[in-house]
Structure formats: structure tokens, C-alpha cells
């Protein structure tokens, strides 16, 4: 049984690609055959964040146009077994993705035994974003605790309920999960940032996890190595929780409250 999961948000820069890279890596680490597809045609970046940009020969659009075989375009991750990346094309042709082509490739990936097909959506609500969500069984909506991001996430939830294969064919609704990223418990405590509770109340979908604001995210993209691979950071721990929770394990939510520091920690930290 394969699952198609779209990582979406509406707004740009909230952490879709970071989340796609980390969740795909985390799921593959648990022994599930996983592929991450970059749907951001023209602005591909998943390859860079995952550190395989120099190994891109063929891409998603080449496969759709039958210029290459799917096996030729898939990049096998060198660090994690069972993990593959299907890079986006750098073409400027906006209509490069069409439902028939995308559906065909997803079907082929399922036939190849991929258990999790992670679709990294581009920002916006235009064709690229709609193609990324069209065949989804589940959606992870990445949101920052910030007004424009929350508003855009709500718009995307509307699209997920209306403009997808499931919605059009009258199937069961897409399961949606909220992932709150760039969260700062200290700012929330000071009343300077929307809290998890606020965002949950506004969007009304279940919480998958909270990723704290952290330098580790930039450092990992600098290196082209998903943060989840360095288990010492809080971001890695948060993404690990998310992966386990997503795979059905009970995990307490962390990184929501400010960590209590000792007086020495405060003085010398």
C-alpha cells in the first residue's frame, strides 16, 4: 500500500522543502521505501537541500515527456537506504506538468514498491501547487506562527477540499495535518507570537508537530544534509518526533514550552 503525501503551505519560505527533505529521510530511515518529488518546476531546490544537486541528469519533466525512464531520473540517496529523490525540471514552461503525466508517474512509483511518495509543493496556489496536491492521500500543511502564513494555509485547506482527485471523484477527504515551523516558545510567552493553540483554533486541523526556530536548519541546508541526520539538534529531535507520530507512534509534543534553564545556564549560557 502506498501513500501519496503532499507537503504544502501556500506561502513561500515557511519550510516546505526543509520539511519534505527531513520527513522523507526520517521515513526512509525506518525502512520504508520513500521517494521525495520536487514539484517546483523552474525553481528546483529539493536536490540542493538534500545534497544531490550534482547527480541530477534527468528530471521529472523529462520522464513525463518520455525523454527518460523513471529509473534514470530517480536519484538514490547515498546516506540513507530506501530513499530516492525525483528532481524538478529547470524549464520555464509553466505547463510542463499535467494531470495525466503526473498521475502516470505516481502510478509507476507505486508499481515500483514505493511506500511513501512525498510531494514537495511549490509556493502559491497556481498550477504547480495544484498538481502537487492533486493525487494526494494526505497533506502536511506547513505553517509559520505568523498572519500571512496562517491565512494562506487556510486558503490551501480550501483547495485541498475542492481541487484534488479525491474531491473531484467524491472519494474520502484528504487527511490533513498541521506542522508549525519556526516556532519560538519565548516569543509566544511574551505575547509576541501566535501560539500553537491560536493556530490550531484558527485552522481547525490536527497537529502533527512543532519545529522550533533554529540555526540548525540553515546549517543543514548549507551542508546539503537534512537536519534529521544530526540527532543532537532540537530540530532533528522535533522532526524525528514528527516522523514517528506520522507513522502511528505516540509521542508527546515538545518544543512548545520554553525550556527551563538554571540560574547558571542563564548567567553563562
Amino acid at each position, binding site marked *: 500500500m502506498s501513500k501519496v503525501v503532499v507537503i504544502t503551505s501556500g506561502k513561500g519560505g515557511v519550510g516546505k522543502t526543509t520539511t519534505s527533505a527531513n520527513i522523507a529521510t526520517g521515513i526512509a530511515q525506518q525502512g520504508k521505501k520513500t521517494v521525495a518529488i520536487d514539484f517546483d518546476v523552474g525553481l528546483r531546490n529539493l536536490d540542493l537541500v538534500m545534497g544531490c544537486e550534482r547527480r541530477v541528469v534527468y528530471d521529472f519533466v523529462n520522464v513525463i515527456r518520455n525523454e527518460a525512464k523513471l529509473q534514470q531520473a530517480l536519484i538514490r540517496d547515498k546516506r540513507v537506504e530506501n530513499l530516492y529523490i525525483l528532481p524538478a525540471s529547470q524549464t520555464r514552461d509553466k505547463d510542463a506538468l499535467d494531470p495525466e503525466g503526473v498521475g502516470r508517474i505516481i502510478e509507476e512509483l507505486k508499481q515500483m514498491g514505493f511506500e511513501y511518495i512525498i510531494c514537495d509543493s511549490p509556493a502559491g496556489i497556481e498550477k504547480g501547487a495544484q498538481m502537487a496536491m492533486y493525487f494526494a492521500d494526505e497533506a502536511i500543511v506547513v505553517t509559520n506562527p*505568523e498572519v500571512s502564513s496562517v*491565512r494562506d494555509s*487556510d*486558503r490551501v485547506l*480550501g483547495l485541498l477540499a*475542492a481541487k484534488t482527485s479525491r474531491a473531484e471523484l467524491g472519494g474520502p477527504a484528504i487527511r490533513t495535518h498541521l506542522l508549525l515551523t519556526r516556532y519560538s516558545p519565548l516569543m509566544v510567552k511574551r505575547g*509576541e507570537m*501566535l501560539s500553537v493553540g*491560536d493556530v490550531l483554533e484558527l485552522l481547525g486541523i490536527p497537529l502533527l508537530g512543532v519545529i522550533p526556530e533554529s540555526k540548525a536548519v540553515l546549517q543543514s541546508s548549507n551542508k546539503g544534509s537534512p537536519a534529521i541526520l544530526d540527532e543532537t539538534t532540537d530540530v532533528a529531535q522535533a522532526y524525528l518526533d514528527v516522523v514517528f507520530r506520522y507513522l502511528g507512534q505516540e509521542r508527546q509534543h515538545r518544543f512548545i514550552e520554553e525550556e527551563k534553564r538554571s540560574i547558571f545556564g542563564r548567567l553563562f549560557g
Partner: protein
Amino acid sequence: MAFFDYFKRAPKSASLAKDRLSIIVARERTGTRSGPDYLPALQQELLAVIARYETIDLANVTVNLDKSGGCEVLELNIVLPDTPPPPPPRLSATVSA
């Protein structure tokens, strides 16, 4: 004075954000997710009726559907043209749906 400003309680920006969002999100949802799609047609038909009696300008007509509490409020606002006899009539009808 800056010294006293320090003790002044400024409104927390997070609660401001939440209030603004709850309004805009609710409004956008009525338009896209759950709102009826007959509003444009309704507007056209109402206009046709009114146009039989009055010359009206399309720009001066607004049709809105708002949710307040448990009930939906259909608001129709038509500004009639400035024609003698004065004063310019302003017709506003509120229908509970």
C-alpha cells in the same frame, strides 16, 4: 518618557494577530469553502427588478453574506442615484437566511 514607557503595558501583538486572522479567515471561508454560489445570480435578478423602477449604477450595489453567531445575514446595499426630489433615498434591506 522612555523610562515610564517601559512600565506601560503595550497590547500584546499576538492577540492582535489572532483577532485579525479570525475575522479574515472566517470571511474568506464563506466565499470559498462553504458559501453558496448563487450570490452573483441573486444580485443580477434583484438588480433587474429594481431597474424596472429606478435607474441604478452597478458600482453602487453590494451583496454580502456574513455569518454572525448561529445565523447567516444576507445584506443587500443599493445606493439609489441622486435625483430630485431630495433627499437622496438610501435603501438598505437586511434579510435573515
